[in-house]
């Protein structure tokens, strides 16, 4: 399987369109940065101007102006922080939903390349990490640059060479982190990837704790996680070294620049009353740039996080939505597989080579074959989780590729091998495909699936919570909820993938009776191992080596197919 690229090029650049999605808000964010940084430079300059005046014998008082500047400075700081964060948190929400959409497009399949823990990590930590960018760049960058340039202009008005010194300082302070930023990005990415991998392993320890504990390997697994954490140390160190180097460079530049400026000023180039202003601007003008470049230092992490988020957002869909979908409203369609070929992308060998068979309207066909023969793959192709590489799958004579996927998934209901119950009530889980169903309809579906009795035996009945935080349900109970869920949709095509494997014989019979009661009203494809299930089908299709090797009723195949006999032979008949 081709694993999708785990990051994208120039991720921060690609975040900009999100920021600009409401130009007026963005403009206000920038304006707030300008006012705030303006005050950061203006207030000390004003104070220094008063100071220089008093020391050189001028007594005019600027108390009123300074007081106003103090009040405005406070308010501007508040305004910038507030509006910047408000906008950032709105954007985070947008990003989270886009991430959801990306995950949806990529499911199933591409997710296999990444661990669930890693994906959850992207959703949780990486999205939050971009807050840093959204809240602290637009206003800060524009404000810092503009105000710093204005300060240089003021110094230039007093003394041009001094302004040159300040300008060079600022330039270097800005450039040094940029020069190191490529490395920062690579380091940040490597660090996050490695940390994500450790996170994934930690999730594995928790999820597999039962097996680990019984195998007495819990401490080994924990030690392994700790070792991996320790291995991260080298990367952290390298990261800290680079960050430390930047700190040193910035500190030296600012410090030595200030001294050069001071020497120039006191050596007679600047009139004494302006000396304090020049020095104060020499300290305060590069400060915003230094602050911004400090933000840029941490952008390495943010860039890496944004890269991973945007990679998921950018997952292309496995299948393309038809441009002009054909209607599909056959109440009892046939399902046809016509010379279907398929191999998982990057998976090497073809799973299906020329599979052709039909499930006629209202018929129940059992699909049998050894584990790994491609049975589940056929179900995935029918649902159009993937597209065939050659041949066609059609429902009611319409190629599934021509049916709108929402329509297709309303037509086909599936009970998969691995059942997922959401953190919701049992009733809510049964309603998954038809949220508007009445209680009576839910109950009827549950009865047909043989689930009603165990549900009502619970104190909370249909309101019992499922999912990992909910009630513990046995495999068989989960299967029956999934069957009820599929039946409730009323979809004319039903796919049961090993749907009764965890049921005891009695319950299995009850479920089959339930299905039989509505037989003929839908077209059913059953993937099964159990003879008891297979025998109930109208016909059996035997799959081997990626192709259909025999078709017929159970009894016919027992007579005609050696492969079928081998698959089922010595099946100890029920006593």
């Amino acid at each position, binding site marked *: 399987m081709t694993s999708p690229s785990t990051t994208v090029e120039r991720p921060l650049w690609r975040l900009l369109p999100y920021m600009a999605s409401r130009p007026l808000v963005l403009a206000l964010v920038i304006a707030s940065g300008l006012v705030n940084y303006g005050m950061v430079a203006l207030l000390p300059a004003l104070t*220094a101007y008063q100071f220089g005046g008093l020391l050189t014998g001028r007594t005019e008082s600027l108390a009123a102006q300074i007081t106003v500047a103090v009040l405005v400075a406070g308010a501007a700081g508040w305004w910038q922080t507030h509006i910047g964060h408000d906008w950032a948190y709105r954007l985070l929400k947008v990003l989270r939903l886009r991430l959801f959409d990306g995950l949806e497009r990529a499911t199933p399949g591409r997710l296999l390349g990444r661990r669930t823990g890693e994906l959850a990590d992207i959703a949780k930590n990486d999205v939050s990490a971009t807050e840093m960018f959204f809240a602290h760049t637009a206003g800060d960058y524009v404000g810092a640059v503009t105000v710093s340039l204005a300060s240089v202009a003021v110094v230039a008005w007093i003394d041009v060479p001094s302004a040159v010194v300040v300008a060079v300082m600022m330039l270097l302070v800005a450039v040094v982190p940029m020069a190191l930023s490529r490395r920062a990005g690579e380091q940040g990415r490597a660090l996050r990837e490695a940390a994500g991998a450790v996170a994934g392993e930690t999730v*594995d320890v928790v999820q597999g704790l039962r097996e680990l504990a*019984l195998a007495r390997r819990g401490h080994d697994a924990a030690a392994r996680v700790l070792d991996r954490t320790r291995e991260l140390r080298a990367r952290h160190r390298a990261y800290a070294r680079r960050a430390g180097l930047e700190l040193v460079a910035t500190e030296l530049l600012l410090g030595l620049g200030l001294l050069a400026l001071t020497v120039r000023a006191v050596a007679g180039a600047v009139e004494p009353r302006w000396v304090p202003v020049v020095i104060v601007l020499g300290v305060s003008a590069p400060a915003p740039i230094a602050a911004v470049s400090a933000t840029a230092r941490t952008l390495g992490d943010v860039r890496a996080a944004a890269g991973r988020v945007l990679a998921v957002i950018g997952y292309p869909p496995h299948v393309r939505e038809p441009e002009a979908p054909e209607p599909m409203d056959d109440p009892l369609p046939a399902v046809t597989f016509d010379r279907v070929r398929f191999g998982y992308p990057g998976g090497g060998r073809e799973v299906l080579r020329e599979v052709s068979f039909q499930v006629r309207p209202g018929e129940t066909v059992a699909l049998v074959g050894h584990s790994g023969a491609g049975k589940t793959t056929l179900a995935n192709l029918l649902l159009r989780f993937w597209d065939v590489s050659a041949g066609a799958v059609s429902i009611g004579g319409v190629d599934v590729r021509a049916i709108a996927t929402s329509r297709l998934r309303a037509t086909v209901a599936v009970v998969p091998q691995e059942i997922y119950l959401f953190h919701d009530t049992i009733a809510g889980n049964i309603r998954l495909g038809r949220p508007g169903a009445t209680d009576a309809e839910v109950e009827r579906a549950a009865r047909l699936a043989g689930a009603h009795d165990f549900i009502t035996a619970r104190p909370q009945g249909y309101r019992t919570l499922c999912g990992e935080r909910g009630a513990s349900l046995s495999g068989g109970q989960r299967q029956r909820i999934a069957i009820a869920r599929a039946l409730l949709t009323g979809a004319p095509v039903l796919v049961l993938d090993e749907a009764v494997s*965890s049921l005891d014989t*009695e319950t299995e019979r009850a479920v089959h009776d339930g299905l039989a009661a509505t037989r003929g009203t839908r077209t059913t494809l059953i993937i099964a191992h159990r003879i008891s299930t297979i025998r109930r089908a109208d016909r059996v299709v035997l799959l081997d080596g990626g192709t259909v090797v025999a078709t017929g009723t159970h009894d016919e195949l027992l007579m005609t197919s050696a492969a079928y006999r081998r698959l089922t032979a010595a099946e100890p008949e029920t*006593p």
Partner: protein
Amino acid sequence: MSVLDEVVSAVRVRLAGAAVLGAGVVVTRLIQAYGIAVLVAAPLDGRPWRTGLWGLGVAAGTVVARSLLQWAGESHAEAIGHRVTMTVRRRLLDHVLALGPAYTATRRTGEVAATLVESSGAIETLVARARPALLLSWIGPLLAAAVVAVIDPLGGVLIAAALAVMQFAGPIWNTIGRKGHDRVFSDLYAMDAGFVEAVQGMATAKSFAATPRLRRRLADQAEKVRVATMRTLGVLFTQFLASRWASAGAGAAVVVRAAYLAADGRLPAEAALTVLLVVLVAFLPVEEAGKHRHAAFAAKAAVAKLDAFLAEEPRVRDDGRPPVPLGAAPVVTLEEVSFRYPGHDEDAVSRVGLTLRPGRTVALVGPSGAGKSTIVSLLARLADPDTGRITVDGHDLRELPLEQWWRTIAVVSQDTHLFPGTIGENIALARPDATPEQIAAAAEAAGLAADVAAMPDGYDTRVSERGGRLSGGQRQRVAIARALLQDAPVLVLDEATAALDRRTERAVHAAVERLRADRAVLVVAHRLATVRDADEIVVLERGRVVERGTHEHLLGRTGTYHRLVQAGAAL
């Protein structure tokens, strides 16, 4: 004791080091201010500027010293961070192991794991960065205030007063906003859990065209997080407003006052200039600490979650007793065992008795939900009986060290977790020192050898999460091979062959058949074919033993077993 205290005490000395380095940075700034003041004062006093040149030398020295201190501080913080992460993570993992599967099986795994992974990051930032920065935000401005006070006592007081406003505004506002913090974090956890669910349940939601609803729910959760966050931050930002007014106002007042004093000749120009330059850098450490506010904010809730998690008591305890001498093939007996899941109002198993003897196979049958899997959990000591007891060669199971018992029993369960690593490593899970030959033999016996041979790297093929591309049947056979390799005298097969096709199932059964001879075996199975050869069949219904005996014996009665068999026969 909070985990935070534990962590802090683990890095106490290093934290003191961080404070010293930070204070050093502040001191260089103050000396630099004086150096520059000396340089600038000369022309203002009407002296030739070269007379102040020594101040330049002093200032230049401080610049170099400060760079070195910053460098040292950065790597020092990294070292603290690493130590913190290791401490927290080790503590958490130990606790997860102590709580055992009984705990993790009942909580959202995502939530548990999130607690594990994220909190250590938040605490790392808190301890390595935010704490030292906070300490310095007091030390720094107070040193500056002291310098100013030497020149102008009132000025020093003003700086200290501004510092008090800046520092105390925080705690006061935090008290007001506390409820908000908690709210933000509970909303955040709910949203994260929602995303974990979205990741895991996406395929299901998609096949039922239910993703729009899932998306709407997430959108609602995300909106809640946003609103709660902004409400809390709104309170926090108001505090910045007060801080900034205090620092800017006091700074301007002190500087202007020093200028008036100098103009009146009550202060030398050099001293007034020192005040001007010191004020410029006085509150830098407070700003610095403010940058870590985000982190401190996140860490507070993380610490609370962590402490709550660490306070959880394990339900199955290992008292650390010495191993008990057991026979090579021990006899395991359930005596009147009852168990009820927390929060349920009916026993999952009630007064169950049964005995597993070497060389005998006991089959456990009954409808879904009859308590079969619970008995397996009790046998594996993932939970302890509420009443009654389980004995091994006459010893109460609770007296055995867990390690010893888990070496004695092998369990093949319904769903099998595969770990990152190779197929071979996964088979050797319970016996990591097994030779490749032993691994291959176990795989052969479990009917897995041909499958592995078809894989690109044989036993060295890596499996990805949850078995990656292994089919359900293959995973189950890995589990069986694991148990076979473990070669334990007590073997429990919990519906172990449900996902296998007939041919493989027969192969597995043949392997199990060979094992039975000298082992005590408990088979939990739905298919009658797999239980009819058992020496004893125990029939469970609603947690109680309703029948027991051999297949023939039970068929002769018209009880539950008969009914189950009839149901099967009619199929």
